[in-house]
């Protein structure tokens, strides 16, 4: 990977940067991830043909960097932190990781070939002939409106589970649900709010994080729109039209 990084504290190949950090020759806190990402994107744009090999390897290395960085930001117990760092990606671990990833990439090529070959076989998917379709029970006959309502309630609850119970969200001690209600109430009252306004009363960082997750959730549901004029600028939140 011949992608080079230019930072105040480091200049050279990107994966060497990772090696240095994992060996604690460089402090992760001195590495501005945003800057690296920005440079990398510019670099990718310069390349006429996007080399996927380079791109996906970069992603893995970058993800490892981010993981280390994220770990460094989390308020962990002192000893635990030490352990994390030593556990952190040593060179060997990273090599193993890249090799493991490569293995699945190769498997993916095989799957693609099989999918391609298989796409030439068309199964018969025609609807049932009328004489047989008539045999199927009239599904509405057995249903009364109340059962109908109960059915959709269970469906909706099912759908929500998928949204809420991703690992990251369910471990939150503060309910994202609650915060979603809070945000919706504020927006209905005030029209629009900035993220800052929504979080002024937060006593802890984790509460602001819950509000942030609530915003993502509401956005996904199509209930709000989000805008940010400049990077690191105010995030404006408003109800969807």
């Amino acid at each position, binding site marked *: 990977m011949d992608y080079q990084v230019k930072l105040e504290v480091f200049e050279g190949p990107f994966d060497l940067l990772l090696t240095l950090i994992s060996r604690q020759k460089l402090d992760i806190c001195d590495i501005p991830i945003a800057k690296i990402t920005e440079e990398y994107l510019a670099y990718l744009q310069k390349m006429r043909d996007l080399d996927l090999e380079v791109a996906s390897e970069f992603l893995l290395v970058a993800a490892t960097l981010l993981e280390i960085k994220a770990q460094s930001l989390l308020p962990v117990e002192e000893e635990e932190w030490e352990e994390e760092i030593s556990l952190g990606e040593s060179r060997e671990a990273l090599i193993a990781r890249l090799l493991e990833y490569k293995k699945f990439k190769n498997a993916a090529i095989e799957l693609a070939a099989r999918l391609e070959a298989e796409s030439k076989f068309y199964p*018969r998917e*025609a609807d049932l002939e009328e004489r047989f379709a008539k*045999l199927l029970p009239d599904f509405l006959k057995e249903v009364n409106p109340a059962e109908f309502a109960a059915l959709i309630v269970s*469906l909706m*609850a099912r759908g929500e589970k998928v949204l809420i119970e991703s690992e990251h969200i369910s471990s939150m001690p503060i309910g994202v649900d609650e915060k979603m209600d809070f945000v919706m109430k504020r927006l209905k009252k005030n029209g629009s709010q900035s993220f800052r306004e929504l979080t002024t009363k937060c006593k802890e960082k984790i509460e602001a994080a819950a509000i942030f997750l609530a915003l993502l959730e509401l956005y996904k549901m199509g209930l709000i729109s989000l805008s940010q004029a400049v990077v690191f600028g105010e995030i404006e939140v408003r109800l969807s039209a």
Partner: protein
Amino acid sequence: MLELASLKGIIEALLFVANESLSLRKISEIVAVDEATAKKVIDELAAEYRGGNRGFQLREVAGGYRLFTHPGYASYVEKLVLSSDYRRVTQAALETLAIIAYKQPITKAEIGRIRGVNVDTVVNSLLEKELIKEVGRQNSPGQPILYGTSKAFLEALGLRSLDDLPPLKEFAPDERTRRRIERRLTSGPVESEE
């Protein structure tokens, strides 16, 4: 020019996958032969099926040709159709209809997001049964079709109007779920179709 043998194979493949009767014109267009040749091959196929104790027959219906199961084996096919696997069709139809009833007007994509699966076939079969109908287009990229329930739907459920549908609140297991459902139902048409 294709050999007659492979012509037979090709036309058989077409009849096999088709979900409706195929006109002679359509067949000859796809295979790129004249209609007379196509007709000859079709007649041969039909004769072969008749003579060979096959499980299906080739019949001319509604201005075209279509494969049907051999009526002599209908009792076995009925057993298959009534066996459990086809119940899934029923469940899918019910769920989809419930979503459309409570969230109309709604696009296929949005129904799919709630049910977590592709709903093309199910929506089409509900349209065919006239339980739902197209009610307009969503003003978003691709202008997807919006669906709503029909008069036949109300009749089938014995409702005077949509207002007679039971409010969902009553069925929510707890307060949290109730609020969630309310939120999702009042969201109206979603604007971004991911």
